[in-house]
């Protein structure tokens, strides 16, 4: 299977700290990749670079075979790389429909980049997007702060699906969620594969990602210390790597 993202020799320094050391990584299309590592292992740095939030000091990124350089998250999003942060991806006071279309509103009577929102279309499409990820909520006008943690992740995933993302980067999507809600999120992510979406699932909780991952990548101290297909490894082996580096 072809690789959708290839990283070569990525390095990143934060005021003298070598946060990412010569990292190379290949991510296969339509797979779920588990990116695991303890706090400070460099996971966040890597995803910030992949999502365009930060730029690497050296190294290259290839997306669908083309060399890319993201100057902003918007550029990465335009290519189809969408990042979902733990809690910060939704505006609590805003409605589900408005949240789904933040920054990508459907507008009419446009003047340049500005226009009036097609509220009805946005509401209908929001409901459809939610149904597509098997999330059944009452109304697209419900403010997000009235949803449970798992439902919120569902909304974020629905949003990424609606905008035809090719790669979904999920940063600790199951943090602070109850077991029931965690399972809900894992089901959402598992469903992505069949819809042609590659996901990178970042977590420090191996037991969350192991059941749904095809491939696992372990990081420690800014380096990649293991990069394995699930069939070539076991949960015990990975635990050992995580604990002992």
């Amino acid at each position: 299977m072809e690789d959708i993202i290839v990283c070569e020799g990525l390095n990143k320094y934060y005021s003298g700290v070598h946060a990412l050391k010569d990292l190379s990584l290949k991510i296969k299309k339509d797979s779920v990749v588990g990116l695991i590592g303890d706090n400070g292992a460099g996971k966040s740095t890597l995803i910030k670079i992949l999502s365009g939030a930060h730029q690497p000091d050296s190294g290259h990124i290839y997306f669908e075979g083309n060399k890319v350089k993201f100057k902003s998250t918007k550029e990465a999003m335009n290519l189809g790389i969408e990042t979902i942060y733990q809690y910060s991806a939704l505006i609590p006071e805003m409605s589900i429909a408005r949240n789904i279309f933040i920054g990508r509103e459907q507008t009419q009577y446009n003047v340049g980049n500005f226009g009036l929102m097609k509220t009805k279309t946005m509401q209908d499409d929001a409901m459809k997007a939610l149904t597509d990820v098997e999330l059944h909520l009452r109304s697209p006008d419900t403010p997000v702060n009235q949803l449970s943690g798992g439902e919120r992740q569902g909304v974020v995933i629905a949003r990424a699906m609606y905008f035809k993302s090719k790669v979904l980067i999920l940063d600790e999507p199951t943090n602070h969620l109850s077991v029931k809600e965690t399972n809900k999120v894992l089901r959402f992510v598992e469903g992505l594969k069949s819809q042609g979406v590659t996901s990178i699932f970042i977590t420090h909780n191996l037991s969350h990602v192991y059941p749904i991952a095809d491939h696992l990548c372990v990081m420690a101290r800014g380096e990649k210390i293991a990069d394995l297909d699930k069939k070539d490894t076991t949960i015990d082996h990975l635990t050992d790597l995580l604990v002992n580096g």
Partner: protein
Amino acid sequence: MSKNFSLRSLLVRPEVATFLMFLAIMIGFYIANERFLDSRNIRIVMGITPEYIIVAIGIAILMISGEFDLSVGSVFALVPMTIVQMVHQGIPPWFAIFLGLMIGIIVGFVNGFITLRFGIPSFIATLGMLYIARSLTTVATAGFPPPFPHILPNELFVYQFELFRASLYWALLVAVVLGVMLHRSNVGNWIYATGGDQNAASSMGIKTGNVKMFCFILCGFLAGFAGMIQTFRLEAPLPSQGYLLELESIAAAVIGGVSLFGGIGTVFGAVIGAILIRFLESGIIMARIDAEWFRAGLGSLIIIAVVFNTYISRRATRIGQNKAKD
């Protein structure tokens, strides 16, 4: 059932609560003195209110984006003072108005630039601007308030019709245009997102700095425009004009349901808030209560409004979460 819920969700909207509070105050003062609601009093109150409405809308939108502007009272004085002085210097009236309004825009830009570039609280940046702009106004009067040049087209902005002044229609125009912008346009969505959670908004590709800058500039422009209307109405440019207006307009916004933390509020709420304050002031006088009680009344109103809104929004969240479990 669903009808029941929509009534409930209407009642928990903060600006609706403000509107009910407004009705209660109007009825209360009407009982105290029937002449409170006769056309003469309404003409007086609505003659001065539009200026406050315009400033309150600017403040409300800026607060929704998550920032403050304490300099509006000073800009409210600086802009008309410069317009008048420029006309005295021989600059054509319309060009002087244009340049004067540009000053409001520039002050807004400087407020935004200092806040965003240096990452300091807008509270501080605009507090500095409050003093600077007031000082400039006093300097511009050159020691003595200049006479009002009657070649200025002030009738266009403040002409007294039967009941209302032209300024009320200007204020309504501002309210409708900016209401549509805030509630119906994509820019409005960005403003709510920026004030609601700046990190989330920028991770969705919104240029939050630009959004805030736009709101700062809009606020400065509206403060200057409103100040110009007041000077045109009084036909006297006073360096003390707009004194304490910054706090009163924040009060109007807050009473109208705008959150101090950003992300929540409506244009309608700010309009009602501004009208409420002016009628409160008038009502206290009409009820033959010592006018000094106005500030106490306003203070109580602010506290009641915020406590009430906090209570209501917590309750609304709880209703929603219980519903979600059903």
